[in-house]
């Protein structure tokens, strides 16, 4: 058992170097180049520790086309900023203001949502950014 254990531990240690992160730390997003995209909500995952929205973008082709996953903060942060579980529902069409993934994959960190009726969904930012 012992040699196998050491081997496994070593493998895991080496494996960490090549981690392919699906959920990312905030550092994986390019905070200097926010973008926007239009799309329709397919799925809402209102879960701790991170809420995600799955969007079908309007673009039929090009780099913005396809199914995107946007990450936000936790339910607590959003509800304290006025969101509810039902603020965004599957079927809603909106404009999504986000920080793109540095590696260029389709997805990003959601900063703001502008709904069809003009209502904006955002969350607490520092004073000078409001």
């Amino acid at each position, binding site marked *: 058992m012992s040699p196998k254990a050491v081997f496994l531990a070593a493998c895991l240690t080496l494996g*960490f*170097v090549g*981690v392919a*992160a699906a959920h990312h*730390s*905030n*550092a*994986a997003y390019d*905070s200097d180049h926010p973008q926007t995209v239009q799309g329709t909500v397919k799925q809402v995952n209102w879960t701790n*520790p991170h809420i995600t929205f799955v969007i079908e973008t309007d673009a039929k082709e090009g780099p913005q086309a396809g199914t995107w996953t946007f990450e*936000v*903060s*936790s339910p*607590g*942060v959003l509800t304290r*900023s006025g969101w509810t579980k039902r603020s965004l529902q599957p079927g809603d069409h909106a404009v999504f203001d986000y*920080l793109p993934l*540095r590696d260029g994959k389709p997805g990003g*960190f959601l*900063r703001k949502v502008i709904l069809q009726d003009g209502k904006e969904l955002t*969350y*607490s*930012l*520092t*004073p*000078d*950014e409001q």
Partner: protein
Amino acid sequence: MLALTGFSKWLAATSLSHTIQTVTWIIPTLQTIHILCVAIAFSSAVLVDLRIFRVFERDEPLREVTRRFLPPIWPVLLILLATGSLLIIGEPRRSLVNTTFYLKMALLLVAILLTATLQRMVLAAPEVFEDRSRQLAGRALATVSILVWCGILFAGRWIAYTQAG
């Protein structure tokens, strides 16, 4: 608040910050080292507090338990300072514009003062809490110590839940 936001933005633009942000394994590795060090510091403080309550190693004099467990906390805190600083440099907004982070730092200051005082008191006067009249003071100190140290760990985890990106 504005100054912190400005400083935070400046930090985020440095090349060190950029490296920490873009090399994907750095932040999880720093956090893992940070957690392991927290485990050492926290357990050391708590085991001595448990000895004061006479539920841990009651057959060992308090002075001996203190001598074994409290001094290692200080070099470990230095490692925590290093990993913590790199984490802040990597993700300045996560901590510098986050009230929970400052709560954690305040609690840490209290814990350092409390633990250092306890270490000095016990090593200087080993019988300090043996006296009946001092026993209550000792237990009060140990209780506050456990609560403050737990508070630091709670605040540490909650940083992620009060940051807004």
